[in-house]
C-alpha cells in the first residue's frame, strides 16, 4: 500500500515537472490580438518531425524553432498569410493541417462538395421518379392483370 502511494506521489511529481517544463516558454505580446494570432498559428502547423502534433504542443527542437520564428515574424509585423508562406516555403505544404486551396488540392476540397451535390441529385431523382410512378394511371392491360390476381386470391 505504502509502495503504491509512493509511486503515485512520484508520478504526480514527475507530471507536475512536465507541466512546468511545458509552460516555461514565456512570451510577451504587445496586445491580446497578437497573442491570439500566435496561438492560432502555432496550433495550425504540424510538427515536421513528430507528425501528429501541432508545433504548439510538441517538445521537438524543431517545433521550438518554429514557434520562435512565428513569434519573431509576428513581432516584425508580418501578416498571418506571410508567416504561413514563410513556413511552407521551408517545410512544405505538409505542415499545414488545413491545406491551401490550389490546383493540387482542388480534388481534396472539392470532392466532399461534389459528393453532397451528387447525393442531392440522386435524392431529387428518386423523389421525382416515385411521384411520376404514383401519378401514372394504370393501363387496361395492367387493370386486367390485377383483376385476375384479386379474383384468384378470392376464390382460393
Amino acid at each position, binding site marked *: 500500500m505504502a509502495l503504491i502511494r509512493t509511486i503515485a506521489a512520484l508520478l504526480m511529481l514527475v507530471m507536475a515537472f512536465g507541466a512546468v517544463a511545458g509552460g516555461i516558454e514565456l512570451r510577451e505580446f504587445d496586445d491580446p490580438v497578437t497573442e491570439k494570432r500566435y496561438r492560432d498559428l502555432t496550433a495550425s502547423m504540424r510538427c*515536421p518531425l513528430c*507528425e501528429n502534433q501541432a508545433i504548439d504542443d510538441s517538445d*521537438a527542437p*524543431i517545433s521550438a*524553432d518554429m514557434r520562435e*520564428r512565428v513569434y519573431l515574424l509576428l513581432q516584425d509585423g508580418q501578416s498571418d498569410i506571410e508567416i504561413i508562406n514563410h513556413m511552407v516555403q*521551408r*517545410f*512544405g505544404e*505538409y505542415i499545414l493541417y488545413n491545406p491551401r486551396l490550389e490546383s493540387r488540392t482542388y480534388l481534396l476540397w472539392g470532392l466532399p462538395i461534389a459528393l453532397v451535390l451528387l447525393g442531392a441529385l440522386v435524392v431529387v431523382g428518386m423523389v421525382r421518379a416515385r411521384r411520376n410512378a404514383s401519378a401514372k394511371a394504370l393501363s387496361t392491360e395492367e387493370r386486367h392483370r390485377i383483376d385476375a390476381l384479386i379474383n384468384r386470391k378470392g376464390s382460393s
Partner: protein
Amino acid sequence: MKRRLLLLLLPVGFLGLALFFYQGLALDPSQRDSALMAREFPPFEATTLRDENRRVDQTLLNGEVTLVNVWGEWCPACKQEMPQLLDLADRGIRMVGVNYRDTREKGMQFLSEFGDPFEINIFDPDGELGFDLGVYGAPETFLVDADGVIRYHHKGYVSPQDVRDRILPEVEKWR
C-alpha cells in the same frame, strides 16, 4: 438496366475510394520531398567551422555539383554515415558540410575522430541555415547543381545502398 448501372456505381465508387485510402495508409509520411526541391539554395552568411574569421555565403556552392550534408556531433546517424560520405568524397564528389546546432570544439573533435570528407564546413550553431533549408533533424543531405539549385534531398541516414542506388545516379544526372 440504367438503374442497375447507377446502383452499381455506389459499390464501385466505394471500393475505389477504399483502395485509394488503403494505399495511402502504406505511405511513409517521413519520406516526403523537401519543399526546396528545384529551388535555389537559400541565401546565407556564416563563418566556417575551422575559421571564425572566414565568411562564406551561398556563392560557395556555385560552379560544381555539390553534396551538402547537414550534421552535428550530437547526431548518432551522422557518425554511422561518415564512411559513406568519405566514400563519396573519394569518388571525387565535392562535399560541403553544415555543422548544425553544434559547437566549434565538438564539431572539430567529431571530424578528427570520424574523418573529414568535407571541403569546407559551414558553421550553423543556431540552426539559422538549417531552418531555411527546412531541416528538422540531422543528418540531411542536399544535392546542389552547378547553378546552386537543389536537385535532390536525402532525409536521414545515408546507407551504402543509398549511395549506390540513389546518390551516385543523381550526381551523374546533374553533372
